């Protein structure tokens, strides 16, 4: 059977083949950018269960958009109907042409313009079913397009406070996309009006238009509509690789390579193109109260087109809210850090003479590090000392000379090499300490020590240690009628997934209020080390916003577990702000009044002594 052709397929064909060519080029470039280890890993997993798992995830996220349904069912339906409806049009169209022609390979435009080439009631095996399914799929897509139009006018109707602003390639592609399916409906409807045929949707449109069928035929309106359909569809395909719609193929490739074990570093170029600019990250951004426009969606867009400014890379608190909201699971924090790393000049950290750790003092198996700000947060540090003593834990304090830093501040500012030097030095000191457990009061340090150091010892945040001690009965606490609300520090919650331990400890002692902005939805206090360009006024605005959302008329105390959060929130809070260690100390039964022995200076080992030894 010869393949039908009409000149109107040309715009579509140009758009389609230019898109396919660019996609092949892009995928080859991604592959060539992988390290040899990643390439080997990916190749070894092609014929494995990982590929099957990737396919399942592609259906779940690429078609059904399950993660967006979790954000808002209506928003999820919008994305699902567009993706699933279009996918069904392609698949059913493929089988329709197969059933009609009997050929597996047909001209690429045949399924798309099928009703133009074979109008009216064409009968072949299953033709009625195919027509019905094609109309059902078209209706599904059109419902999504209608919601997309509505979302532009009223984002809140689809569960979003703010919708992303788009640049011109996106707007052009979006306009084409908005018209593709309505024009298809009109083309098929016009053809049905003249020649008959069509199922419940296109047939009905045809019936409505049929009184003017002679006029439509005389003016060749159906032909003009098919031209229009070809132009908008071709236009969309032409713009796809240059616009946000590149996320459609890029996300699928990303899912596949993730399952094939390619390292996150190698995946970064794909991640930049896999962002659909859906804007779901915007509503969670901690910088919103200060009117910043550096949200992840805009940062990733600028990084993709290669014009990241210092402001875009650095005006971010690295609170991780966007990353926890992203339906594609992009590693937005790492992408931002990559921008900071590239923009930064070299900065060498001198060996820090004052860094110190006590060695085997008092047979200490536990090393306590209050964080570099330990000396500046005496309430927390002394509460922890007393609690450790009350629990009968022999411990030594790291950093008695106030000269230690976990390295995370440098890391967050893009100084990865300087941070690595810190990590190496601290690891050496900790190894010399013969400690088995490291307890820290700072979530920033906890994240760094637990995720970026390879330490042969257990690292705990003090909330985890408290839970263990209270759970074991080594610390006896009483329950008071105080009403408190807990603020999840970014680095502890979203950064390390520690949500339950502090709540468990607090609910044994006080009435703990819940809040809509807790756990993963926690608001950054604004004092984060990730954003050093923040002015005091902005910091206070962000902190006030967080406090307003957390504290209500019943709240007596705002509890947190981070020295930064405590200080920042206390500056604006109408109620007292305390660390969880202070609250535990207040509720401790049989508070010991023993004097805490100070460590002797001779037990400290410094970096220089280590190197000299």
């Amino acid at each position, binding site marked *: 059977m010869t393949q039908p052709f009409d000149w109107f397929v040309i715009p579509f064909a140009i758009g389609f083949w230019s898109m396919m060519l660019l996609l092949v080029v892009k995928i080859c470039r991604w592959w060539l950018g992988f390290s040899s280890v990643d390439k080997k890993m990916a190749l070894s997993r092609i014929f494995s269960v990982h590929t099957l798992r990737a396919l399942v995830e592609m259906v779940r996220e690429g078609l059904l958009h399950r993660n967006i349904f979790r954000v808002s069912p209506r928003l999820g339906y919008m994305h699902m109907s567009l993706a699933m409806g279009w996918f069904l049009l392609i698949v059913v169209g493929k089988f329709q042409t197969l059933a009609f022609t009997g050929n597996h390979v047909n001209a690429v435009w045949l399924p798309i313009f099928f009703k133009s080439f074979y109008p009216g009631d064409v009968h072949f095996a299953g033709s009625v079913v195919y027509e019905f399914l094609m109309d059902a799929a078209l209706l599904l897509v059109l419902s999504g397009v209608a919601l997309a139009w509505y979302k532009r006018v009223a984002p809140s109707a689809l569960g979003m406070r703010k919708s992303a602003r788009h640049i011109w390639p996106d707007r052009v592609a979006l306009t084409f996309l908005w018209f593709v399916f309505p024009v298809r409906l009109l083309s098929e409807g016009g053809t049905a009006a003249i020649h008959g045929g069509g199922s419940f949707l296109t047939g009905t449109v045809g019936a409505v238009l049929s009184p003017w069928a002679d006029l439509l035929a005389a003016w060749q309106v159906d032909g003009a509509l098919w031209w229009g359909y070809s132009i908008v569809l071709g236009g969309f395909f032409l713009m796809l690789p240059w616009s946000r719609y590149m996320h459609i193929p890029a996300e699928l490739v990303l899912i596949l390579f993730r399952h094939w074990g390619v390292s996150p570093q190698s995946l970064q170029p794909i991640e930049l193109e896999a962002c659909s600019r859906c804007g779901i990250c915007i509503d969670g951004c901690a910088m919103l109260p200060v009117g910043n426009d550096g949200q992840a969606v805009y940062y990733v867009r600028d990084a993709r087109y290669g014009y990241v*400014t*210092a*402001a875009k890379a*650095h005006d971010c608190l690295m609170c991780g809210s966007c990353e926890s909201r992203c339906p594609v699971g992009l590693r937005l924090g790492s992408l931002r850090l990559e921008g900071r790393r590239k*923009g*930064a*000049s*070299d*900065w*060498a*950290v*001198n060996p*820090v*003479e*004052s860094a110190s750790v006590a060695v085997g003092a008092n047979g200490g198996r536990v090393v306590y590090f209050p964080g*570099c*700000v330990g*000396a*500046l947060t005496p309430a927390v540090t002394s509460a922890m000392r007393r609690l450790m003593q009350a629990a009968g834990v022999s411990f030594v304090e790291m950093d008695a000379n*106030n*000269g*230690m*830093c976990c*390295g995370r*501040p*440098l890391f967050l*500012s*893009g*100084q990865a090499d300087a941070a690595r030097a*810190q990590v190496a030095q601290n690891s050496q000191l900790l190894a010399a300490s013969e400690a088995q457990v490291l307890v820290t009061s700072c979530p920033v340090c906890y994240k760094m020590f637990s995720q970026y150091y390879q330490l042969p010892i257990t690292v705990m945040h003090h909330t985890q240690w408290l839970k263990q001690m209270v759970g074991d009965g080594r610390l006896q606490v009483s329950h008071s009628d105080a009403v408190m609300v807990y603020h999840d520090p970014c680095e502890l919650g979203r950064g390390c997934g520690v949500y339950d331990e502090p709540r468990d400890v607090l609910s044994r002692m006080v009435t703990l209020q819940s809040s809509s902005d807790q756990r993963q939805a926690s608001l950054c206090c604004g004092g984060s*080390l990730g954003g*050093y*360009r*923040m*002015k*005091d006024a902005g910091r206070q605005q962000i902190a006030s916003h967080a406090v307003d959302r957390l504290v209500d008329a019943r709240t007596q105390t705002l509890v947190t577990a981070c020295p930064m959060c405590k*200080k920042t929130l206390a500056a604006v809070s109408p109620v007292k702000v305390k660390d969880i260690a202070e609250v535990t100390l207040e509720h401790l039964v049989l508070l010991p009044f023993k004097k805490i022995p100070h460590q002797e200076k001779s037990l400290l080992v410094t970096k220089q002594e280590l190197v000299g030894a």
Partner: protein
Amino acid sequence: MQVRDLSMAGAWGDSVDVLKAIEPSLVNCITCGGCAAACAASANVSVAKAILLLRRGLLADARAALEGCLFCGKCRFVCPMGVNTRGVIAALTFSPDSSGNILHQ
């Protein structure tokens, strides 16, 4: 907080004007040295000293006064005048500012 402008306008030279544009809280510094006392990095690192040197127009020396900084922000924690010390250090040392000026080159 109402803060007297201690900037001695005009006496600082061009680089300081650029720095002030990036980090306006710089002019609040009263060089009390609290930052240096709290510093985790080394006895030689001092934001107050750096700002003092800047006021004398000694950009390179100011930079040297921050060498070895760990960027931990303890200085910001203690600063009684609300100087965004990390912003000052970043602008002076390793971070380009939003207008593309890179002072350290």
